[in-house]
């Protein structure tokens, strides 16, 4: 999979609830192969707002229109400057980066679990699974109803279940307490979200002997495996989130 550096055209930048937004980008060249779970390193050309690039997951790809989307939450100055991009502006990316989710065998009962901006990579993953004939359950957790993102897109690729911490929508509690986890059993779980959530899901999977992959969010200096800043402590020693990950099987992690 060849990586490239490219300035892509912003063809849409849609604010969602609260601090979230979805940027759609168009390439003037044919899009490279991109897999679910991969990410980009983004920076506004010439911008001094941040020094380093910012890693963002590939949210969804449309190879027909030659575009793809990023789902981003404003948490600091980098993401804030991205949120202000207008149609026609450009965003410079190094992409596609990282490994990808390991796709389950046909007929595998599959669960996707996401929280906050961690739901970003799950849409492209769900779409891919669906194209392989797997309709996953998708369990999304949010703080409260005001923080629920528009999940219609997710409903098109799987069966969506919701939790909110305060019960203002879906079931009350954390994703791990959702009744689904009591009832159903899965061959494969994919999870992306706050570390606490991923650890809880990892725990549940261990207990239930379920294969589980998580997508980690570490601080990144380069995104291409040279700065060695993004390490995660695994059973094989320090591995790079940007090249050995961001997707790790929980068997590899010391959680």
């Amino acid at each position, binding site marked *: 999979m*060849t*990586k*490239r*550096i490219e300035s892509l055209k912003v063809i849409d930048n849609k604010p969602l609830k609260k601090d979230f937004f979805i940027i759609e980008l168009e390439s003037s060249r044919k899009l490279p192969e991109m897999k679910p779970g991969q990410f980009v390193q983004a*920076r506004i050309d010439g911008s*001094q707002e*941040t*020094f*380093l*690039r910012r890693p963002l997951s590939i949210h969804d790809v449309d190879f027909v229109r030659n575009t793809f989307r990023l789902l981003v939450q404003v948490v600091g100055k980098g993401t804030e400057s991205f949120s202000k991009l207008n149609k026609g502006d450009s965003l410079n990316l*190094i992409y596609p980066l990282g490994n990808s989710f390991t796709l389950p065998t046909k007929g595998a009962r599959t669960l996707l679990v996401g929280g906050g901006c961690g739901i970003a990579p799950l849409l492209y993953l769900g779409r891919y699974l669906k194209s392989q004939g797997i309709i996953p359950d998708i369990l999304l957790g949010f703080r409260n109803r005001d923080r629920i993102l528009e999940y219609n897109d997710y409903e098109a690729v799987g069966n969506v279940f919701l939790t909110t911490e305060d019960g203002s929508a879906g079931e009350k509690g954390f994703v791990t307490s959702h009744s689904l986890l009591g009832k159903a059993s899965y061959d494969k779980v994919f999870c992306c979200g706050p570390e606490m959530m991923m650890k809880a899901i990892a725990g549940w999977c261990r207990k239930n002997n379920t294969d589980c992959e998580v997508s980690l969010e*570490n*601080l*990144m*200096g*380069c*995104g*291409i*495996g*040279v*700065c*060695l*800043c*993004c*390490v*995660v*402590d695994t059973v094989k*020693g*320090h591995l790079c989130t940007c090249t050995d990950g961001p997707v790790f099987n929980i068997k590899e992690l010391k959680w």
Partner: protein
Amino acid sequence: MVKLGFSIGDLQFKNPVIAASGTFGYGSEFDDFLDVSRLGGIVVKGTTLEPREGNPYPRMAETASGMLNAVGLQNKGIDYFEKNIYPRLSEYNTNVIVNINGSCIDDYVALAERINKLDDIPAIELNISCPNVKMGGMVFGINPVSAREVIKAVRRVCIKKLIVKLSPNVTSIVEFAHISEEEGADSISLINTLLGMSVDVRSMKPSLSTITGGLSGPAIKPVALRMVWQVANAVNIPVIGIGGIMNSDDAIEFILAGASAIQVGTASFIDPQASVKILEGIENYLIAKGFSDIRDITGFLNCSK
């Protein structure tokens, strides 16, 4: 065509743009972005005798126009390097330099002896300036006595060109440059990172697992440039300027101040093509200014009033 080459003793470099250690992996990570063989040289990741895991996460923090790192020389050790990495490196048509690091003088000597046997490595960069390891590294580089000892010991065995990489965390950089020259270094590269720190006010914790770390990027350029200028005026061996070089104007500042070559570090994180863009920019500058050889502007800084 302008001439861009320079040499360290009889070792020729086709141009003065070298990738800095710890920021360019082993070159292959950049194959998708540029033709590594176009560069004057690459210095590969800091290498030690034994494999090292480096420091715990978090190892990085962004700062104003810079970054702190606390990687701590994570690498797979010289055996792994020799067996698995070196053969690939030989394919690049450029000078591949190994940055060597140790916890004691014997380590450095042993590494130099190992590199002696690697025909396609024409030079070593002796790193006595890594701020991110408890033993060795900067401890050598900020003490004139131990700096002299380690350089002397390595020089005794080293049959390759010896580049000594200096730490900026000292009162007199010129003192360490003199020591390097006296002990037979073929070249001096500087600066390594400045020792810095950052705090996360939300969690009230240090941003790095090691509390302090190494500052790199444009923030340190003025300090780096000052030190390169001081050193270039003090020694007679080629000086390689490093620190915050993001574009060709930055590189030219160092060359005017007396650097025979420069290394591109953190810039490669932001733009993996930074090194070749800098190379092209230097060439264009020379053409625009009417110079036909880069050596015509090396140390050419006009300090008259």
